[in-house]
C-alpha cells in the first residue's frame, strides 16, 4: 500500500511540476525514476522512443509503464492517476475565471521565469543522455577510437541531418533503428 501511495505521490509531483508537456518533463521523469531505481538511464531513452511511437501523451505512457513495472496493474493505475490529478484539480479551479487568469500579470511573470527553465531542463536532459550513450564508462581517448564510437557518431550525424531537414520524429527513430540493426549484424558476422 505504501508503495502505491509513493507511486501516486511521485507522479503527482511530476504532473504538478511539468510546464509545457512532452519533452519538458523528460528531465524530471528521468530524475525521479532513476533516483528510485525504477529505471536505468538507457531504459528511459528506450522508453521515449516507445512513447513517441504509440498514441497518447508521453506523460501518460510513462506513468502507466513505470507504475506497472513497479506494482502491476494497481501501480499503473496509481501512477497514471497521480500524473493526471494536478491538471484536473488546477483546471477545475481556474475554469471559472480563466479570462482573468490569462491576463494576470503574476501568471505571466511566473511563466516568464518558468519557460527558460523548462527549456534549460530539456538541454540538461539531452546532455546527460548523450553522456550516457557516448561515454558510458567515462571520458578517455581510447573510448573514442573504437568502431562502436564510429557507428554511434555516424548514426548521430544522420539523425542530426534529419533534424536539420525537419523530418518527422518517426523517420528519425526508424533511421536510427536501422543503423542499430546494421551495426549489430556487422558485429555478429565479422567480430
Amino acid at each position, binding site marked *: 500500500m505504501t508503495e502505491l501511495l509513493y507511486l501516486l505521490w511521485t507522479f503527482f509531483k511530476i504532473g504538478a*511540476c511539468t510546464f509545457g508537456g512532452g519533452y519538458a518533463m523528460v528531465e524530471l521523469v528521468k530524475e525521479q525514476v532513476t533516483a528510485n531505481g525504477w529505471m536505468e538511464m538507457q531504459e528511459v531513452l528506450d522508453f521515449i522512443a516507445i512513447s513517441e*511511437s504509440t498514441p497518447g501523451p508521453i506523460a501518460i505512457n510513462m506513468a502507466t509503464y513505470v507504475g506497472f513495472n513497479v506494482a502491476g496493474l494497481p501501480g499503473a493505475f496509481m501512477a497514471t492517476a497521480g500524473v493526471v490529478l494536478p491538471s484536473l484539480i488546477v483546471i477545475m479551479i481556474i475554469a471559472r475565471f480563466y479570462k482573468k487568469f490569462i491576463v494576470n500579470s503574476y501568471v505571466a511573470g511566473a511563466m516568464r521565469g518558468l519557460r527558460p527553465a523548462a527549456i534549460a531542463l530539456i538541454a540538461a536532459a539531452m546532455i546527460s543522455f548523450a553522456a550516457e550513450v557516448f561515454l558510458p564508462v567515462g571520458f578517455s581517448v581510447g573510448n573514442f577510437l573504437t568502431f562502436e564510437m564510429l557507428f554511434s557518431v555516424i548514426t548521430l550525424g544522420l539523425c542530426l541531418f534529419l*533534424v536539420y531537414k525537419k523530418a518527422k520524429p518517426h523517420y528519425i527513430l526508424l533511421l536510427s533503428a536501422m543503423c542499430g540493426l546494421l551495426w549489430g549484424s556487422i558485429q555478429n558476422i565479422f567480430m
Partner: protein
Amino acid sequence: MSEKSNKLGACLQLFWSFFKIGALTFGGGAAMISFISAETVDKKKWITDEEMLDIVTVAESTPGPIAINTATFVGYRAAGVLGSVVATLGTVVPPFIIMLFIAAFFDFFKSIEAINYMFTGVRIGVIALILKAFLKMFSSCKKDAFFYVMFALAFCAVAVFGAGTIPVIISAGLIGVGSVLVSLRRAKK
C-alpha cells in the same frame, strides 16, 4: 428530454471524442491540440475558436501535460466537473491500455537480439529527438536578457551543480513572479 439525461448524453459523447483523440494522436502535445480543436470546435461545436485559443494559453501556463490540461478544460466547458473527468478519462484510457500490453511484453521483446540492436541505434535517435524538441521550443520563445539569464542559471544548476529539478522549477516560477513585483514597484515610483 430532461436536463439530466441530456448531460449524460453529452458526457458519453465527450468520452468517445476524447477516446478517439487519445487513441489516434501520436507524439502528444502540439499534435493533439490540432486534433482536439478539429473534433471539439469544428465538428461538435462544444466550444468556439476563440475559447480554444484561451484554453491552449491556460493549458500552457498551468502545471501538467498540455494535452491533459486541454482535455480537462474542454470537458469542463462542455459539461462541467463531470465533463472534465470524463474527457480526461477518455484521453487516458487508450494509451493506458496500450502501455499495459507493452509493459507486460517488454522483457520478451528485449530478449530478441535484433530488437536489442535496434535499440542501441534508437537511443541515439532519441537524443536527436530531444534536440529537435529543444530547438523548437527555444526558437518559438521571445528572448530577452532575462530569458538568457534564467536559462543559464537553470541549466548550470541542473547540469553542472546537480540540483534537483523540482526546486529549480519552483525557484524559476518565484523569480518570475518576483520580477513582476520589482517592475510594479518601479512603475509606482
